[in-house]
């Protein structure tokens, strides 16, 4: 059995103006892609932000065997947890290359010498970023920005990469490209927790899936099973109506 990387138990977020989360529990094994799908406002982003420490939460989060209770965002990054938020949060007035280098900031502080090499790896992964290496991040197109956000995250050599809607607002062809890249990342040893509205695509590239509805985990299972589960499609589109749901 694969090694447990992330264990979340009974995570609750009730904080003013964010979509709430009620007792969410989930696990991610090393070397797998886990997707969390669900409609807008179900609390998907809240889940990732709470895991990253951006939002305060109750419940237990265990990462690589360490309790994350009182750990700051920066320490989580240093321990190998990395979030690409829905808003991307790039440094838009800095060059593509600077953005990528800053992604490796915690490694630089540790004295890691392999940063140049990682930069080349990212450029091989996204050749378009290399062409634009000296452009400001703010001048990039939507798809390129998403690539940069992914590249910046990879520069930190994360153990667990959390992606919040990587396909958001992108044209179909680019969505395809990005999702293929994410799927390929698995082979490099990165584990991924993926949040997507594009449910079908997310289930196609992931190993295991959770369906989040109204702040609660409504369904879970191996992705292939979820994809065929008529209830997922129904509840997702709302065609089935709510009455018969438990």
């Amino acid at each position, binding site marked *: 059995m694969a090694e447990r990387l992330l264990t979340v138990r009974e995570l609750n977020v009730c904080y003013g103006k964010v979509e709430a989360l009620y007792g969410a529990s989930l696990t991610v094994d090393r070397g797998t892609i886990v997707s969390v799908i669900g409609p807008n406002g179900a609390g998907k982003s809240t889940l990732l932000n709470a895991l*990253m420490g*951006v939002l305060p939460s109750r419940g237990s989060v265990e990462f690589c065997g360490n309790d994350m209770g*009182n750990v*700051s*965002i*920066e320490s989580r*990054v*240093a321990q190998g947890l*990395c*979030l690409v*938020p829905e*808003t991307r*949060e*790039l*440094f*838009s*007035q*800095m060059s593509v290359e*600077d953005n990528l*280098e*800053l*992604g490796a*900031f*915690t490694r*630089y*502080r540790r004295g890691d010498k392999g940063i140049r090499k990682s930069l080349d790896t990212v450029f091989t992964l996204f050749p378009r970023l290399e062409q634009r290496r000296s452009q400001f991040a703010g001048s990039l197109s939507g798809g390129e920005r998403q690539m940069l956000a992914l590249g*910046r995250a990879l520069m*930190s050599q994360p153990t667990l990469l959390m992606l919040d809607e990587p396909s958001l607002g992108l044209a179909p062809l680019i969505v395809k490209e990005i999702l293929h890249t994410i799927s390929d990342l698995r082979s490099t040893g990165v584990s991924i927790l993926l949040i997507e509205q594009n449910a079908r695509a997310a289930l196609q590239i992931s190993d295991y899936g959770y369906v989040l509805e109204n702040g609660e985990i409504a369904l879970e299972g191996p992705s292939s099973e979820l994809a065929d589960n008529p209830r997922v499609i129904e509840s997702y589109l709302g065609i089935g109506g709510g009455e018969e749901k438990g």
Partner: protein
Amino acid sequence: MDFQTILILAQDAITNSAIYALLALALILVFGVTRVIFVAQGEFVSYGALTLASLQTGVMPGTVWLLLILAFIAACMETARLLVSGARHKLPGALATILAPPLAIAALVKICTPLHLHLGWQLILTMLIVIPLGPLIYRVAFRPLADATVLVLLIAAVAVHFVLVGLGLLFFGAEGVRTPPFSDAQFTFANLNVSGQSLCVYATTIVFVAIMAWFFNKTLYGKALRAVAFNRNGARLVGITPHLAGTFSFALASAIGCLSGLLIGPITTLYYDSGFLIGLKGFVGAIVGGMASYPIAAAGALMVGFSESFSSFWLSGYKDVVVFTMIIPVLLWRSLTTAHYEEEE
């Protein structure tokens, strides 16, 4: 007004502008990184010059006591913080990093003060005393307010200004000082006398700006600081600690302030409260740059320097009025060129 006068006024203007530009630089950086409008920045200018003057007369400067007190308060705050968050094991290390350097500096000053060292050594000693004040003030006054609004931080900055001015009077008295110049040399170019000190000001400014440009554009730590200023959330997500960035920006602010004080100390008489006005003139420059652009702020500093210098010739009594009233048309210009309303959430 003859050509000779214009040259003399211009020389004056450029010397002052250089100082204002340095101060504006620090103000913009501190604001970008911490959102603190650090009006107390000018106090480091006074502290620099007055600390050096004390050392010159062989008296232990009061700023050393301030250094020790701040370090003690910071140590107490850090202890409380670590105990509350249950990280007791980190305590010895944290206390050592906070307390050891100030204690070492205080001991060094205690030993060196009666020795009447060469000016160069005294300058270094002054900087050793004044520069750590910046990060310590950040730790004690501003870091606990990290989540506050710009407005609250501004009020805190004004409070810090009050404390520092009051302490300045307490430590150094109401007497003004002039510190010895770095160089006594006088040069004559085309009938214009240029003092060695003025050249020192120019040279130091150029070197300092060059170092800063290198630091911010070429080193990862420099880029990290800029990243915090541009996008705080993004910076946290790549693992840059805002507190560390804040500490560093305040260190830079105190360093620039202290250096400015040492540079102009020989040119103008500085009192315990002179720094504030000098700092505010740097502010006018920073506002011209919209609290964001370094080159425009430098141009603004030149504008301040020139209008100050020339108005002191034509309207001597109104020199400060002119400089500070100038901010109104500047703001009008900014207001008209700012396309969208900047909403604060």
